[in-house]
């Protein structure tokens, strides 16, 4: 009688071991040979700030790397601003440029950002922007600097469509209250007692044990050269880049837009228009606050979104969503926001005509942020606006 083969016992852990070793081999190959720049793709460049929320780390010098899009160095000063250290106090007596990622210029060299280009034109400009900020957080930055005694010549808020659209009711309400210190931010909080720390550690472990695809992706991009190469490095090889895009392994930047598609519908009114109205309300509130508190000019710099600037991309996006392009309008949110701001007496710089007239490629191949060309155009428009509309001549 045949004897059944005995099944080896307890092979789960050895199998885990083999998988770990196999993965380690692949990972090491990518770290050392195939993609040694992997650590520069995703950098830990933020920390908690008790007033600003998330903000850049101070004294940061990091490389931002994403082939074939950009390979630049980001520097921050000792206070975390994307600005010079020596002379920053002088800059704070000039124009304040507030905004989010486009104004921060995450994928720009320091001297390519529009605020730095204004500086090159003789204006003293303090870049207050933060890559991870929404407008509410930038208002806190402005208010904090005012509370420290700094006084600008003017305050400019850059709004890039369609990221700038959102629900700002709470931010408007906060503007009427004393500046709040976010005591839940770890940097503002004492470490706590040993038992509190232990509880926190256990909670962190429990959270880490939860399976979340987003969290796994976040960990992989920070810790794996192989994953980072698949996600980013592969773009450095044109044939693979095209292939991954074609088969859908990589997100096509032209098919991404944070705007609810309803907002793009070419009709007089949509339910999503409240987002535009909220952005207008916030701008009005900030304008009033700046006027009352600082008595200096305030203006909004409106920057059109990628689909507004690239009609062909918008057509693809509409086809991707299965919508009829003829019933949609990529410029609608921008147009309505601009109209709302003007109607409420908020000075607006519309950068769209100059950007559209340039006939240049104004973003990165795989990222919708403004590239150096776009920053140069915006800087030119802002300089003209400062001189002609706000009556502010260069300081130098």
């Amino acid at each position, binding site marked *: 009688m045949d004897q059944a083969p005995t099944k080896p016992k307890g092979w789960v*852990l050895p199998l885990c*071991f083999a998988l770990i070793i196999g993965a380690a081999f692949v990972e090491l190959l990518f770290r050392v040979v195939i993609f040694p720049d992997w650590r520069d793709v995703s950098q830990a460049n933020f920390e908690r700030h008790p007033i600003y929320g998330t903000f850049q780390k101070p004294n940061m010098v990091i490389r931002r790397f994403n082939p074939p899009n950009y390979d630049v160095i980001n520097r921050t000063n000792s206070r975390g601003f994307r600005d010079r250290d020596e002379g920053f106090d002088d800059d704070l007596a000039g124009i304040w440029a507030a905004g989010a990622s486009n104004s921060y210029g995450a994928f720009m060299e320091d001297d390519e950002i529009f605020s730095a280009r204004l500086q090159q034109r003789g204006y003293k400009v303090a870049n207050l922007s933060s890559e991870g900020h929404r407008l509410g957080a930038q208002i806190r930055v402005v208010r904090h600097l005012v509370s420290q005694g700094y006084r600008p010549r003017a305050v400019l808020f850059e709004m890039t469509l369609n990221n700038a659209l959102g629900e700002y009711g709470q931010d408007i309400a906060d503007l009427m209250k004393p500046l709040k210190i976010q005591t839940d931010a770890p940097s503002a909080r004492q470490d706590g007692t040993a038992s509190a720390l232990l509880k926190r550690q256990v909670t962190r472990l429990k959270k880490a044990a939860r399976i979340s695809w987003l969290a796994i992706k976040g960990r992989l991009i920070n810790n794996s050269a192989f994953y980072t190469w698949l996600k980013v490095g592969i773009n450095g090889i044109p044939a693979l880049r095209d292939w991954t895009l074609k088969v859908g392994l990589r997100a096509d930047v032209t098919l991404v837009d944070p705007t609810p598609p309803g907002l793009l519908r070419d009709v007089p009114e949509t339910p999503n228009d409240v987002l535009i109205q909220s952005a207008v309300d916030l701008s009005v509130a900030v304008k009033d606050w700046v006027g009352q508190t600082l008595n200096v000019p305030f203006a909004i710099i409106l920057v059109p979104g990628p689909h507004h600037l690239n009609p062909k991309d918008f057509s693809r996006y509409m086809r991707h969503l299965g919508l009829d392009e003829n019933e949609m309008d990529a410029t609608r949110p921008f147009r309505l926001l601009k109209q709302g701001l003007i109607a409420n007496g908020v000075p607006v710089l519309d950068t769209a005509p100059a950007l559209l007239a340039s006939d240049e490629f104004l973003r990165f191949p795989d990222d919708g942020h403004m590239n150096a060309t776009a920053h140069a155009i915006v800087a030119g428009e802002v300089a003209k606006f400062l001189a002609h509309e706000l009556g502010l001549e260069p300081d130098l």
Partner: protein
Amino acid sequence: MIPGLVPMTPGAVSFLALSGALVLLAWSPWRGRFIVGLALAAVVMLASWLRPLDALALGLFLAGPYLAAEILWGRKDLGGGAVSWIVLVWQIALFLVVKRYGGFDLLGGLGHPVSIIGASYILFRQIHLVVDAPYIGHLPFSALRYLSYTSSPWTLIAGPIQRYDAFCKGLDLIGRPQTEDVRKAANRVVNGLIKAFVFAPLFLAPSSVGTLALPESDWIDFFIVLYGYPVYLFLNFSGYVDIVIGAARLCGFTTLPENFNRPYLARNPAEFWTRWHMSFGIWVRHYVFTPLSTFLIKRAPPRFGGLMMAITVMVTFYLVGLWHGPTSNFVVFGLLQGAGVVVSASFGRWLKRRVGKTTHKAIEAHQGLRWLAISLCFSFTCATFLFLNNSVGDVIGSLLAFLS
């Protein structure tokens, strides 16, 4: 440093890959050349840490003992002679300079241009080789073996400290282990990873004594601080040892010594050091305690034998403390441990004299008393470990603030 390659520590992806490569080599028909692979792995691991100047310093650090071993190998007539002493003094001086000990901080003015990873453990092995080279001439010795022995990726960063004869025996055993042994070794690696990288970190942050100064800290916090760091240290260190012993055993290299034997079940501090970081304890006994006690006892009148032994213990533990780090907290740790060993040994002898051998044996066998001794020893160990994790000022200041 190699671009893209972060410094390798056990548990790092690159370390696991390197271990995997060694396993494949050990299981392959080329296992006869394993020593070449091991030396190459040592170079890769070192290269992941060292900048060019560090590599130069390491070359200097490795050269002296190697040359001495070449000269002394199998030469019993040269044992304990001038060559050994000169190289030992030179090597220890180099170590003190590289590690920036007070009084030897010669490179401070240059902004500490060099740092050698694993220098302590390399030094332990070098001292063993230089001292014992005349008596182990029957073993093979070469530059490759020297590099692999002193800087093996398995034991470079934190041991265990292996004797050269066991290292050579381990090399002879390289090959594919029995299936059950493969399973056990792989189990050990995975368990080590879980201990060191999942559970150990839970206890590190809560064990900072500074938190006791907070007004809201209570006695629960006190016990978390007191016992947290020892738990962290054990999980981290023994987890690390599990990883490296498991990785070596997968290659058939079964002679890496164990480093822990339920250390927190020790009944007194002397026993603790036979269970905790055992390979270090054995090394210290061989190369510090035994020669020093022999030297002192030989020169002192017999009635001072106990005193000489106590002095030896205190000097040994002073050095143990200094080895853990050059700052005063480590010295305090060593002296407290030494005092613990002296006091517990004296108490044991006094008790034996007082109650007699039979009753003493009965006391030792008593389960309740045994557990009392274990808990006292554990608490004492934990109290001294406060100084491994915090400065003396922090410990005293925070405890005073807590008690006030």
